[in-house]
């Protein structure tokens, strides 16, 4: 019944019905002998006003509101078309504001709001081991088994550890990302294999048969998704694993400690001799599912008890060790949530500024329309009807802005995603879905009401006679007061955004100026795995292969220096060892020993990385497996343990080997933990150990992958290709993987901050632009209003300087007020950014002052053009004007 197209038809039918009635009445009169002309006249008279009949009949259809709405819309559209300049500026302003909001909201929606893709995700927690130096450290395998057995809070508990395998026998040899998992890893998360079966309990024990699960992506890539993949075998690091199942393509935990993998094998298959040791820290982290109804606090209390019992039973390894739990959602999104919320708040400010600007435009325009509304009121339009008309117009503007904004957002999100920090979790889920569209629609409507309401209310009470008499220039004082308030609000919001952006820029400048302790330029790092035939080779054969690798890589054209690096890499991955000092008795428990970061490296490491040698010497090729054990320490280690004493010649004993190694050199400290947080980390002492002096037991793990750092003679471009060809010449089954430049690694570590800085910068620039347009508009308007007054002043002898001061005084007042309010708001709001800042406080006086000065000058500059017009006012013209 209520569709407009049906309404048109009905209109025609009513017309026909009425015409037929008229005809029949006329022909009746004719039959009675009236003349045709008289009959027509009589019928018309009897019928009355046909238009009114039509109108009243139509009202019976119950479509009055719709007709009025359509009328308002038509009228509104006509008004907007008649002022293309105004419409264009308003729609573009709104499109920028709404588009930016839609873009950021679609990120927030995809990352924070969409539910996690696991059944009862709220029951999932990540599991870590807290110990000295590490709040969320790695879990040892024996502790995991005991936790699994002793806890009463979890329905299941699993661990995983990432690993790279050399895959051979299926196409070209390659390095694949894999994960060691315990049997109930997938059942804990709530993921079922799409083909085959999950690991069964017990299959993850040390010594069980080698089996594997593969990802759907790997299944497709290597086996064309063929169902007969089950039972086939995969050669990983030279060992055969039987494929028992395929896990779904979209499976991901979005955690740094659980990187996406293509292959999953039971953790018992790990040939690491440290695995069964209770004190080992091997990068193993866990995930567990709370029993229904058990809260995380209850689980923490329960695990606390379990940990205390284990500490009592195994004091050597477990003293001071406890389980630490984080809800999965928090672990996954805890880092990005504050950043995204700050950005969302910033972008909301941009929209508010855009709304204020459009409200200002509407207000200025309503000056010209006051007469129009007075006439409409005089002709009988109700106040409500005019208010509705104005709101219809502003909502029409807002919806147009919203539609355009949606296009901008789609484009903006796509391009922003390319620059997003690589570790933004769930970035793939970002897009325009129903919720985003609803958000945009609601935001547009709200914006339309918001910026439409102020001018609409201002026009609501025109003093009818005055307005008509004045030629449509009524209600001026209230109007420009409102405009000035708008400008002050706008300036305050722009100031908040500028301070936010300023703080991020200062943060980034500080970070860029942090000396990482090495020279990252022209340094490249990659992983390399030896051919599978080396997997079971003797330690001596492996050492020989590594020496060969050193020689061949060093001789590769373009390589200035190179070194192997086995354990830790600055900004990359870390490794720790415990030790005591030679001459002291061995401490009773591991927890009474000292901790240090250890870099197991080749002799060329210092030269390659550009780390300065401060005392003594670094390793040479002669510091090999036959020579006395030597180490080098960094200056933090030296200061911490030796103070002003000379550390050279002193010895330390590592817990894993139990042998004394002598300190032969002191080198500069390297920022292991990133540019920002290294200074505040508890564990900073660093030790360097020559690769060749590592115990034989370690050599077995080396063929599956070691790190290499290379310094390029000129630049890193093309270097990888020549290194790759060197590697291929050595063996086609030797795989090179994970190549990155050190510059890139450092840059990636700043990606999240850089991203926020760029976005905040863009938003602040937008805010600055919009508010200067606002100030310009208001001052122009005021100058226009005061032309006559200025003319009189000039006629009475005011100088141009006086006129300029007259105009600028008003903008300075607005600017100062805006700055004051903005500073107060910023003091409260920038605290939200605390976690994103480095080297600068959230209330940094320099930033606040600089931004306040910049904003005041921009406000003055925006007022200067209209002020100059005022200075040129010719008194004669101005006075003749009225």
């Amino acid at each position: 019944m209520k569709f407009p197209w049906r309404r048109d038809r009905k209109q025609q039918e009513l017309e026909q019905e009425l015409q037929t009635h008229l005809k029949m009445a006329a022909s009746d009169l004719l039959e009675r002998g009236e003349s045709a002309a008289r009959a027509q006249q009589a019928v018309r008279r009897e019928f009355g006003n046909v238009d009114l009949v039509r109108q009243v009949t139509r009202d019976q259809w119950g479509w009055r509101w719709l007709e009025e709405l359509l009328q308002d819309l038509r009228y509104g559209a006509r008004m907007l078309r008649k002022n293309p300049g105004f419409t264009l500026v308003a729609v573009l302003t709104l499109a920028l504001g709404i588009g930016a909001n839609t873009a950021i909201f679609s990120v927030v929606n995809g990352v924070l709001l969409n539910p996690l893709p696991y059944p009862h995700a709220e029951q999932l927690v990540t599991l870590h081991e807290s110990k000295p130096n590490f709040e969320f450290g790695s879990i040892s395998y024996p502790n995991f088994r005991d936790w699994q057995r002793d806890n009463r809070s979890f329905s299941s508990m699993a661990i995983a550890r990432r690993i790279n395998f050399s895959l051979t026998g299926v196409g070209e040899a390659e390095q694949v990302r894999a994960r060691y998992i315990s049997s109930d890893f997938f059942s804990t998360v709530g993921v079922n294999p799409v083909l085959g079966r999950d690991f069964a309990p017990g299959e993850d024990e040390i010594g069980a048969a080698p089996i594997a699960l593969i990802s759907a992506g790997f299944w497709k890539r290597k086996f064309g998704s063929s169902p007969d993949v089950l039972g086939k075998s995969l050669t990983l690091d030279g060992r055969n694993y039987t494929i028992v199942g395929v896990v779904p393509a979209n499976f991901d935990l979005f955690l740094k400690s659980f990187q996406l993998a293509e292959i999953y094998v039971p953790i018992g298959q790990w040939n690491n001799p440290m695995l069964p040791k209770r004190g080992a820290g091997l990068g193993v982290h866990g995930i567990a599912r709370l029993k229904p109804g058990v809260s995380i606090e209850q689980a923490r209390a329960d695990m606390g008890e379990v940990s205390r019992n284990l500490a009592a039973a195994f004091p050597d390894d477990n003293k001071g060790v406890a389980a630490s739990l984080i809800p999965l959602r928090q672990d996954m999104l805890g880092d990005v949530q504050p950043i995204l919320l700050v950005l969302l708040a910033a972008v909301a400010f941009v929209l508010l500024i855009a709304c204020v600007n459009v409200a200002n435009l509407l207000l200025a325009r309503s000056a010209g329309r006051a007469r129009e509304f007075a006439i409409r009121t005089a002709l009988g339009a109700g106040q409500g009807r005019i208010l509705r008309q104005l709101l219809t117009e502003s909502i029409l503007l807002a919806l147009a802005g919203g539609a355009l904004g949606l296009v901008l957002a789609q484009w903006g999100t796509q391009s922003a995603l390319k620059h997003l920090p690589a570790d933004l979790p769930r970035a793939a889920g970002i897009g325009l879905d129903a919720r985003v569209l609803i958000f945009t629609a609601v935001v547009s409507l709200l914006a339309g009401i918001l910026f439409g309401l102020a001018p609409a209310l201002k026009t609501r009470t025109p003093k009818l006679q005055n307005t008509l008499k004045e030629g449509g220039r009524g209600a001026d004082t209230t109007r420009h007061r409102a405009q000035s308030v708008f400008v002050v609000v706008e300036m305050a919001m722009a100031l908040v955004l500028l301070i936010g952006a300023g703080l991020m820029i200062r943060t980034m400048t500080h970070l860029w100026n942090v000396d990482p302790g090495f020279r990252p330029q022209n340094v490249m790092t990659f992983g390399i795995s030896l051919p599978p035939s080396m997997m079971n080779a003797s330690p001596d054969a492996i050492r020989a292969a590594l020496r060969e690798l050193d020689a061949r890589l060093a001789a590769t054209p373009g390589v200035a220096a190179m070194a192997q690096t086995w354990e830790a890499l600055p900004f990359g991955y870390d490794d720790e060892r415990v030790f005591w000092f030679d001459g002291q008795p061995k401490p009773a428990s591991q927890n009474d020993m000292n901790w240090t970061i250890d870099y197991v490296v080749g002799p060329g490491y210092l030269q390659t990385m550009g780390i300065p040698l401060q005392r003594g010497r670094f390793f040479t090729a002669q510091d090999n497996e036959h020579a006395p054990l030597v180490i080098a320490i960094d200056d933090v280690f030296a200061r911490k343990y030796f103070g002003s004493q000379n550390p050279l010649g002193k010895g330390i004993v590592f817990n894993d080997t139990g042998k004394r190694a002598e300190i032969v050199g002191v080198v500069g400290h390297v920022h292991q933990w990133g540019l920002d947080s290294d200074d505040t980390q508890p564990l900073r002492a660093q030790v360097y150990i020559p690769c060749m002096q590592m115990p034989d037991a370690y050599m077995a793990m080396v063929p599956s992958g070691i790190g290499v750092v290379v310094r390029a003679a000129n630049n890193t471009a093309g270097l990888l290709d020549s290194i790759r060809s060197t590697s291929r010449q050595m063996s086609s089954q030797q795989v090179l993987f994970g190549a990155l430049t050190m510059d890139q690694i450092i840059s990636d570590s700043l990606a999240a901050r850089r991203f926020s800085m760029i976005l905040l910068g863009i938003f602040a620039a937008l805010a600055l632009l919009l508010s200067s347009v606002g100030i310009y508009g208001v001052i122009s308007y005021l100058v226009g209003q005061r032309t006559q007054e200025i003319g009189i002043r000039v006629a009475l002898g005011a100088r141009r300087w006086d006129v300029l001061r007259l105009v600028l005084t008003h903008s300075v007042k607005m600017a100062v007020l805006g700055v004051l309010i903005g500073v107060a708001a910023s003091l409260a709001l920038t605290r939200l950014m605390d976690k994103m800042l480095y080297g600068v406080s959230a209330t940094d006086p320099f930033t606040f002052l600089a931004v306040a000065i910049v904003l005041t000058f921009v406000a003055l500059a925006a007022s200067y053009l209209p002020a100059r017009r005022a200075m040129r006012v010719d008194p004669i013209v101005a006075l003749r004007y009225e």
Partner: protein
Amino acid sequence: MASRYQNRIELLQGTLDLLILQTLQWGPRHGYGISQAIRANSGEILQVDTGSLYPALHRLERQKWIAADWKLSENKQRVRVYRLTATGKKQLLSERSRWEQLSDAIAGVLSPARRGGQA
């Protein structure tokens, strides 16, 4: 003709609906036919104002008391013919009884003695 206009009685609020429904009880009719029938049956006294007739017809149609179809009349004109619906019949009954109550009441007020005498 002028006299007829002078004799016209303004219809009471709501009675037009009753008259239309009653008229349609004897069979479907078009708008002009309805106005003619009311005039004829009232002895030319009730003159339905066209400006009230069509709004009333469309209102009754919206309330589903009457329904309309396009048909060809005897002189081959397309006319919109209204007919009474089932709910319209019920409505007619209730409006009639209300009308009868009302006219009794008015009659009582106008001649109280006669009413009292009957009782």
